[in-house]
């Protein structure tokens, strides 16, 4: 439940391989974008598939819905292109497909998930900046990593004695 693409901003090297993979998967359109700022690190950003998604709430035709993995998906046949989801999204995620006159957004690679595969961006990321899974499980792993790194650091700094009585 509640599986998401977790983005570890500190690991992103702004190589944009995720964008390339997403474009491949979605017919030339990337639903993950890497932003770079002169004074700041690079940041990859995609749909957060919010637990209480404003886009789902506001959609007048119920075109936006949640699938079994917890991903917020768009049913193209129901969408009327009213842009409301895009307006209420705090991250500016839903975009208008001006050719088909409907909205489009990250679907966490629904086709790939159906085959038991990971989202394309996660598969392609060379740096471990992107991971996919249950959010609380990912957090648990991160806590574990933090404690492990702290212990390793303490071992290195002899006499520092964080773990000694």
């Amino acid at each position, binding site marked *: 439940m509640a599986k998401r693409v977790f983005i570890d901003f500190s690991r992103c090297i702004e190589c944009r391989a995720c964008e390339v993979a997403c474009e491949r998967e979605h017919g030339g359109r990337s639903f993950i974008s890497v932003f*770079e700022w002169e004074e700041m690190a690079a940041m990859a950003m995609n749909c957060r598939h919010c637990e209480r998604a404003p886009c789902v709430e506001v959609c007048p035709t119920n075109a936006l819905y949640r699938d079994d993995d917890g991903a917020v998906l768009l049913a193209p046949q129901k969408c009327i292109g009213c842009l409301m989801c895009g307006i209420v999204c705090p991250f500016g995620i839903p975009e208008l497909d001006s050719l088909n006159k409907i909205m489009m957004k990250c679907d966490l690679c629904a086709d790939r998930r159906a085959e038991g595969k990971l989202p394309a961006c996660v598969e*392609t990321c*060379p740096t471990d900046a992107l991971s996919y899974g249950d959010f609380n499980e990912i957090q648990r792993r991160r806590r574990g990593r933090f404690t492990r790194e702290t212990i390793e650091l303490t071992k290195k700094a002899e006499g520092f004695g964080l773990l000694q009585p």
Partner: protein
Amino acid sequence: MRFAFLCRDRPSPTGRKVAVIGAGPAGLSATGYLVCQGHEVHVYDKLPEPGGLMLFGIPEFRIPIYRVREGYEELREVFGVTFHTGTKVTFGERKDEGDEFVKETVDFNEIREQFDAVLIATGTWRSWIASIEGTDLEGVYPALEYLFRIKSAKLGHMSWNSIPPVQGKHVMVIGAGHTAVDAALESVLLGAEKVYLSYRRTIHEAPAGAYEINLLKQKGVRWLELTVPARIIGENGKVVAVELQRCKLGEPDESGRRRPIPIEGSNFQIDVDYVIFAIGQTPTPPFSEDVGIATDRKGRIVVDMRHMTSVEGVFAAGDVVTGPSKVGKAVLDGLNAAESMHIWLEGGE
């Protein structure tokens, strides 16, 4: 890092054989695409392990080693890709950075005859060195060679004795791109006492971005902006100091950045033991003599819309075509080239 992310299993074979020269991000993602179409792919690389700069250049704290290994191992185990490592494909004599591991040399034209199509993805493995006095001294390194040796030792392909012993020494890195930043950071991690970064423009023009430069400063790297090396001073054949000249910024040049102008009489010296040049790299195609493949004045291979070179059936992708770029850009270029190769192999245009 999965390269064959378009498919899961190996499709039925088409009977066509493709050679990919260079196992970096462009070559490997092209390989991933081609095996998903059922072609037999042989990958040639002069290094002892596939991965290219992702494994032998970019530090481990940026790209974890296991991610790259996972990727090429899947290509080998699941998709039957044959990797010819330690094998340099070339035509004509040329010495490049990373040649230490070459066990075997294969003639480029021989590859062309053996395979239905060839992809050149050999990247940019030669570093620029400033044409100043003293670059032949012991202790002067091209950045790529410096990083390459450190990563080779980490990967277990080279002994730590072959790494420049910078511990407790003074290191100066020239340049402010990603390679320069990585060379400076690795020097800090190896225990260099003082690390300097000399750049001829200011932090605002630094190709690696102000964020990365500021991180370096926090780690104790001394940032010397608006300086350019005038000469390297040696004693008994070894580097002892660098003479830097201060610059000011003038009018924008063709790249749109303000041109650095050296100031007469502003020279000063800094005592260093190592000088690392990270001022850019040039393409290293697998030929140094005329094989009928056109290159431009920067040495990049010229390709058409289909990523095909001036020789029918020989394609090129990645940094060897675009010049130094980024992992993602190389992946994209490799995928696009592979798509064209597939269409061409199937008899289309």
